């Protein structure tokens, strides 16, 4: 059941320039799934809409969720100033999440690029598969890489070549001679397009998490759609709502 409520910040720190790592005490932790996201509301009433931020880690026992986000504008700038004990307004849990059953027992790529890395952590924790975690960054600020290493072998790529493979996640796959039967990914659009093409060439499924400007977050406003290959069963036109039909889609079903 989705709900909006006021939660409490447990901790926050900056783990890379403009990348913030926040733990929040919230009952939403109980049934959060990897790949789902929260709508986080700024307090400043000039910035009204919820900011979609992916769930990075869910600790059901402690009743806490972790989000790792980049400061991209006024809303996330405000969140970055919160500290322990502060109230934070959340709408959650939103979206469908990664289909864990599609990876069970298989050889899988878990791929994250930039601020698309955070949801890969909870996925890596929960997915029961032979996990090869491939992550791409701009530079040597390899945030969350150590956390990811708890769950599988991590291959990193950096655009500036300061760590791991010089280039992107696809370069890292090639350089390390990696293979997989299924892909799970979150990252910038060029990366997702490359993954879609790679998966199509090899005829393997790829489950990609998409992002779009959103308003409601619950499927009502139809702001955040993606074009689909076929007429979608809910919309009856060839597009689907990223917030509720996604954010995770099988790559071959969407036109990106």
């Amino acid at each position: 059941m989705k709900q909006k409520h006021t939660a409490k910040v447990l901790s926050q720190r900056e783990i890379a320039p403009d990348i913030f790592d926040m733990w929040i005490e919230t009952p939403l932790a109980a049934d959060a799934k990897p790949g789902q996201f929260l709508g986080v509301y700024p307090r400043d009433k000039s910035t009204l809409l919820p900011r979609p931020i992916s769930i990075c880690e869910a600790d059901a026992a402690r009743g806490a969720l972790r989000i790792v986000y980049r400061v991209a504008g006024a809303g996330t700038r405000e969140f970055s100033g919160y500290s322990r004990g502060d109230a934070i307004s959340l709408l959650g849990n939103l979206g469908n999440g990664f289909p864990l059953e599609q990876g069970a027992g298989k050889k899988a790529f878990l791929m994250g690029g930039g601020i698309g890395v955070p949801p890969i952590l909870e996925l890596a924790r929960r997915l029961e598969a032979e996990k090869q975690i491939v992550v791409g960054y701009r530079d040597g600020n390899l945030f969350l890489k150590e956390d990811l290493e708890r769950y599988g072998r991590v291959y990193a790529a950096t655009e500036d070549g300061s760590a791991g493979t010089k280039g992107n996640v696809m370069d890292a796959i090639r350089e390390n001679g990696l293979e997989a039967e299924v892909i799970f990914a979150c990252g910038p659009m060029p990366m997702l397009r490359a993954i879609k093409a790679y998966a199509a060439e090899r005829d393997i499924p790829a489950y990609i998490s998409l992002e779009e400007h959103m308003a409601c977050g619950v499927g009502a406003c139809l702001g955040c759609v993606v074009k689909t290959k076929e007429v979608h069963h809910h919309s009856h036109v060839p597009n689907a709502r990223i917030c509720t039909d996604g954010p995770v889609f099988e790559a071959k079903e969407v036109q990106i």
Partner: protein
Amino acid sequence: MKTQVTIAGVTLKNPVMTASGTFGSGMEYAEFVDLDRLGAVVTKGVANVPWPGNPTPRVAEVYGGMLNAIGLQNPGIDVFLERDIPFLKQRDTKVIVNVCGKTVEDYVEVVERLGEEPAVSMLEINVSCPNVKEGAIAFGQKADALFDITREVKRHARQPVIMKLSPNVTDIAEMARAAEAAGADALSLINTITGMKIDIHKRTFALANRTGGMSGPAIKPVAVRMVYQAATAVQIPVIGMGGIGSAEDAIEFLLAGATAVSVGAMNFVNPYTCTEVVEGIERYMEQYHVEDVTDLIGAVRD
């Protein structure tokens, strides 16, 4: 305490409804809002055939509000009647269906189909969407065009007809009078105000459609003014909307002359807004010893 209001013979349990396009057909918000608490659910616009809507980005935040250019994406009247109406039928609230079209014939087709559906209490005719190129706003920005489509819709409608007016006009009173003269049973306003946002970092339009409709608290004073002007120009009931996020906002519209109010963009900001507005109006009535909510309608005059 009496909270009922009557519009064109249809009695609503209270004057609070949802604004078209912000609430789907109620399903998405039923997790947050007990629809039985609402005066009416006004559905997302429905056309005779499915409309795919505009390219993305379709929404952008602006100071104190948002822009949207959804482009009236909808699954078409067949799906609407098979899926959405059965869901709404089970709720103890009135159903008002927003109708959109590109031609007069499109509107008439939908209006006729809905005429066969007793669960639909009223029709709201969208002649004011700023985000579709053909139809819609073309009917809503000239008084004679508004008159003609109103008369044509009225000729085919079995339910009372609400004409939803655009604020993107020079004289809202003239538009209100034109709709009334053509037989409209009620008016609703305001639809969104056409706006634009430019991303100065990417040097692009924030919306793929370039322009979009502005909604949210920032437009409320414009909406209150227009509701006042329309309500003083006509005898038929006016439904007020534009930036309503609290009971205080809603009461402002009632005092300006609205018989009922709609909650729109603020559903996105707080999914519980509709219920909070219903409860807040009741508290206001208690506080000021208002026995009948209709005593508030148009209570502020020169």
